């Protein structure tokens, strides 16, 4: 287990709660709409090779919620300031789900923020055939059901989702959900401009998807592949929306291969 610290990064007055650990070149992790799930096994494995920065997005968890920050492009702009504040440039990144959308917007907005980008079950592009599941109209328990193909194969499922939550954690989860609504309500979890914006992205990019993703169809991975020149798509069999939790070993291998 790699030691990590909790740090507060002050970005022009907005405090961003950041988990930081490991050694090596920097790697930015961007969490999904549900929030930052903490230092899981897969993250620990990444920290063996890289210095991991794992912030809670503004509006999430213990980070501040600036009133003006209401869209994913706002978020992308904010993360460029965040990187600048930390003196980071041309770094590696992995974006999970909504975090993948944020990473893509950052890459489209600024061509020297990242050197390599990995998108895991990313929202942001509207599928032509299927749909991105509507997570706001169902209960958190139903969302969880959709998230995993087979919870039994996720080693940390019980530790992360199966325990009793404290009232504070419930409040945080509710606040995170509200922030997701703020950012992604309409158009729902996508931006019609995104495919066009991604045309100028020319860094190595890899999409990773669970074959059985019931939240963001694999088709979205293919659309990302089409939009970003030279990118590839790795599909993990018997896996749902969160390969990093459901199939951590395969995820880590794919990630480390790509990031190396």
């Amino acid at each position, binding site marked *: 287990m790699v030691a990590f610290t909790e740090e507060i990064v002050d970005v022009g007055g907005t405090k961003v709660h950041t988990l930081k650990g490991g050694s090596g070149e920097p790697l930015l992790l961007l969490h999904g709409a549900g929030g930052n799930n903490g230092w899981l096994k897969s993250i620990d494995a990444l920290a063996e090779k890289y210095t991991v920065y794992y912030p809670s997005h503004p509006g999430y968890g213990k980070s501040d919620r600036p009133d003006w920050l209401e869209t994913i492009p706002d978020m992308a702009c904010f993360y460029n300031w965040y990187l600048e504040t930390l003196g980071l440039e041309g770094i590696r990144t992995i974006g999970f789900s909504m975090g993948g959308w944020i990473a893509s917007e950052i890459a489209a907005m600024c061509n020297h923020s990242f050197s390599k980008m990995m998108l895991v079950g990313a929202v942001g592009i509207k599928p032509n055939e299927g*749909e991105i599941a*509507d997570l706001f*109209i169902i209960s958190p328990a139903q969302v969880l059901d959709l998230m995993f193909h087979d919870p039994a194969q996720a080693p940390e499922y019980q530790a992360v989702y199966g325990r009793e939550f404290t009232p504070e954690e419930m409040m945080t989860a509710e606040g995170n959900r509200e922030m997701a609504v703020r950012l992604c309500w*309409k*158009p729902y979890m996508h931006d*019609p401009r995104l495919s066009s914006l991604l045309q100028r992205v020319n860094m190595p990019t890899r999409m990773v998807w669970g074959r059985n993703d019931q939240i963001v169809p694999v088709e979205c991975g293919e659309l990302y592949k089409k939009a970003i020149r030279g990118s590839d798509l790795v599909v993990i069999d018997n896996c749902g929306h969160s390969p990093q939790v459901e199939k951590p070993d395969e995820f880590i291998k794919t990630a480390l291969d790509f990031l190396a």
Partner: protein
Amino acid sequence: MFLMRFTERAYTTYTEEAVRNSPNEAVRLTFSNSNFDPKVGARQYNEYLDEYEYCEEAGFDGLMLNEHHNTPTCLGATMNLEAAILARSTKKPKIVLMGNPLPTFENPLRVAEEIAEIDMISNGRVVSGFVRGTGVESLAANINPLHNRERFEEAHDLIIKTWTTPGPFRWEGKHYHFRVVNPFQMPLQKPHPPVWIPGLGSPQTLVWAAERGYPYIYLETDPQGTQDMIDIYTEAARESGYEPGPENFGYLCRIHVQDTDEKAYESAKGFLTGNVGVGRVPMPKDYMLPVGYGGSKADPRVAKYQGRIRKDPFLGLGLETASYDQILDSNRWIVGSPETVIRKLRETLSVIRPGILGVWTNDGDTTHADTMRCLELMGQEVLPAIREIGAELELTDPFQKMAQTV
């Protein structure tokens, strides 16, 4: 032949001077609403509704309504409210909405719901017209005019799908996004109320309407221009695999009748204070056609269309400068005793051959009493005569055509 009565329900209790002193000297959009007296409005609304209700008795097949915003020239700012009232207070005539300005709406589902509700209250008498709205409508609702046509088409597609596809379903379009399309109320008419498209003949709209088999209603266009438009529609209809007839075309015309030619000549002068406003002060071009509204001039058909509209001295706001006698001599407005009106109408109908005739009976400051007399004479003499001419010229309307095919 389907005969529907129309007036823009103008408010005229203001002066030319007030218009000249207003921002950009415009009677629409920025002419201050401090010139509006709600007491006058209260009287006028109810008189206009009385007139429409009387039209049922007079024998009109339809009551045609329209809508404009920020203007004294049309009190029907939200036509659906008047339509709802007429849906409840009349029994037989169709209620023809010409039409809801789709691009100005952020929520097409609400339009679908409103029309469904009115269709039910009227017992299935709604004809649902859709329009792009003039530039003033885009500006009043602050909707980017560049997106006007895209929004028109997308809102239309969503409304029709809402009416014809069981909910709930999702719609993720360019301009409209809904994750639960499922209004419980649906129109009485199946699959949905008839859709008619009124306009000045923009080629893109003509082709779009023809492809969908929607009747197109020409709004007082010149006879030659109307012929060109019919050709464009016909060509597109044939490509879609059908042969259009009079039931695919309508024509709106100002027709004012009184007991004598002299009396009619005087009372029809209200047309000069109607949609062009008191004093006929020319409107700024950017109000009616904001940048991006008109479509690509690279398309020769669009260029020809725009040139025609611009040069037409007797159309819409072109009326700002033509003299009353010039207009009447052109026969674009038909004014006179029943005998005169019937004679002139025969010529117009023979040339344009519409299955639907919009009878714009009065406007502006023509008095309520004169209007009622006009409607009475329409019922007693003019409408029966037009029906005969229609039968003779075989001007089949959409409802007759539907009845024939069933």
